[in-house]
């Protein structure tokens, strides 16, 4: 077949080099791995071969930066909103009409979104991908419950398996469901995973948003915000629960857990003094006392405009943190601080994370300032004459970072 390259001892060769629309899928897939999802989407319209290739799992890992995807936190919307975290380009509205029911965002899961059905009082989960217009319900929980904590464990990059953990929640009446359930994608079913301490069930039900971080130590962590922040951790393999203190707990106005690129648990927080900080949990399992180590501080010059305040400002330039939230990417190379959709964003990025050889030797004691950088990302321009001034811009949103995929893994 013209354009197909066959190899082997006989060294059979094609007569001509292929044209663009005939390039072998593995090569074309490699080109596509460098494309951000919007460019890839336009490229796959070019011809059918390119469409087929864009939809086939390629040999190369995606190399584009993650996108921030946001959905209204408390209301339903027929759109979700996504933007390249590199800050180029604007927010794009992705229709959600392919989903049979209104959804709320729970967590990123590889290139997919774990969502819950907005209309259901008990937790009902679904997977969806607004970039490829795919939706699939997960089976119902074994024990129905409301507002449990949800944790996600993604399998290694070679397989696309994952687990969803559901802990706590309130059962019918006013009792707490002090049990854990686990959904394993390889089995396609929930399994009861035993009881859990009631105290943790209460904390996880009442005071926990559903963001969780699966750290390299095999534990899943949730941030609970009962008066002062603290962290609840579950060692998944041993089903062991514990609580961790949080640095500057009584001074933090907001805090979020992230995964660091070295697998450690990270914490990003904004304190009452107006400074933003990133900590890393060290020492566990390394023969030392476990403690939080300060890893990074938001540079002065980026503060005060929309986030926090500068400590040296004598004028009333203090904006405060307001509704600042922070999300981290699954691989830990990117954190985004944001408020509302239309507002400016602060992005923390690990240097070299966009290059191939990024995982080179960083010893446990490094992670110094010059391996990461903070950047400012402009909010989207608001048209001052627009009468609607789109309410979505000021609506509280929940957002996650993910690497969008145009493939169709939910088809089956």
């Amino acid at each position, binding site marked *: 077949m013209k354009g197909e*390259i066959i*190899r082997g001892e006989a060294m059979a*060769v*094609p*007569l*001509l*080099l*292929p*044209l*663009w*629309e005939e*390039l*072998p899928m593995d*090569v074309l897939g*490699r*080109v*596509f*791995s*460098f*494309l*951000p*999802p*919007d*460019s890839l*989407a*336009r*490229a*796959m*319209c*070019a*011809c*059918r*071969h*390119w469409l087929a290739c864009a939809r086939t799992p390629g040999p190369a890992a995606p190399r584009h930066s993650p996108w921030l995807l946001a959905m209204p936190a408390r209301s339903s919307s027929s759109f979700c*909103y*996504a933007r390249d975290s590199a800050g180029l*380009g*604007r*927010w*794009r*509205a*992705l*229709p959600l009409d392919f989903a049979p029911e209104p959804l709320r965002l729970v967590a990123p899961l590889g290139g997919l979104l774990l969502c819950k059905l907005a209309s259901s009082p008990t937790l009902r989960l679904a997977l969806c991908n607004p*970039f*490829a*217009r795919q939706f699939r319900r997960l089976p119902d929980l074994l024990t129905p419950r409301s507002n449990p904590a949800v944790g996600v464990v993604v399998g290694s990059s070679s397989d696309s398996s994952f687990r969803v953990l559901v802990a706590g929640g309130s059962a019918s009446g006013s009792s707490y469901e002090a049990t854990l359930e686990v959904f394993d994608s390889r089995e396609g079913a929930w399994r009861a995973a035993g009881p859990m301490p009631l105290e943790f069930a209460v904390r996880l039900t009442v005071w926990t948003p559903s963001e969780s971080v699966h750290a390299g130590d095999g534990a899943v962590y949730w941030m609970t915000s009962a008066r002062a922040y603290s962290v609840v951790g579950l060692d998944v393999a041993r089903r062991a629960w514990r609580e961790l203190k949080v640095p500057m707990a009584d001074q933090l106005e907001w805090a979020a857990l992230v995964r660091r690129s070295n697998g450690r648990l990270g914490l990003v927080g904004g304190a009452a003094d107006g400074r933003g900080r990133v900590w890393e949990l060290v020492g566990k399992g390394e023969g030392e006392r476990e403690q939080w180590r300060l890893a990074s501080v938001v540079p002065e010059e980026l503060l005060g405009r929309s986030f926090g305040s500068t400590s040296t400002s004598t004028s009333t330039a203090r904006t405060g943190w307001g509704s600042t939230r922070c999300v981290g990417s699954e691989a830990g190379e990117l954190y985004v601080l944001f408020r509302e*959709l*239309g507002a400016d964003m602060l992005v923390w990025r690990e240097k070299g994370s966009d*290059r*191939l*050889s990024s995982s*080179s030797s960083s010893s446990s004691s490094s992670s110094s300032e010059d391996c990461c950088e903070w950047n400012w990302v402009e909010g*989207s321009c*608001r*048209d001052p004459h*627009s009468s*609607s001034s*789109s309410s979505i*811009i000021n609506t509280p949103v929940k957002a996650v970072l993910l690497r969008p995929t*145009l493939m169709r893994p939910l088809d089956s």
Partner: protein
Amino acid sequence: MASQDCEAAASSRAAAASSQDCEAAASSRAEKEEQKTVRVAASSRAKKKEQKTVRVAASSSRAEKEEQKEERRTVRVTSNDGEEFEMDEAVARGSVMLRHMMELGIALDGVTLPIVSGEILALAVSYLRFHRDYDDGGSGYGYGYSYGYHSESEDTALTNFDRDLVKQLDQATLLDLLAASNYMEIEGLLRLTCQTVAEKLKGKTTEEIRQTFCIQNDYPPEEEEEVREEISWALEEKSLD
């Protein structure tokens, strides 16, 4: 007067160019001569060593001979339009395809690549030659993947070379080079060309992509409409308002 200067300048430029060609030809001829004399010297050295080491243990003399056999071995690669390129075997090993051929012993009389033109092969060979000087072969990662091992100045040199190599290429040449690097299995060059193509795709509309890359739209209209609807979010710069 002015036009005379222009003509003079033009003709001297032409002369320089042709003498450059001549110089280039002469220097490559000289290179080939050098390689021949070195080969001759090596073999005569080997003979002398053979005579000297009669009393030395057999294994060590065998080892010495092996060493000398590895010096200055080259492979000749010919394009489909008859252009020949002679490379050190160490350089040629940057192409996994050539490496296998050499290991199988089928490259001794030279290799002809029926789908690679001289223009493209020249680019590939210059890539292999330049990267041979900087990359470590046999690391298992192949050429072009050893960036972590270099000093910063070496790293800059590598990136500048790569950038200059692909900078001027039109899409047809870029495609040919991409396909050739895939065919010849030159990992670093394949990555470089793939990334360059991706850069050219970024930000373009579908129609612009088709025009730039001369791609035939083979969608039946209903199917095209379906796909465009699916990716409607990517088609325009929609603001939130």
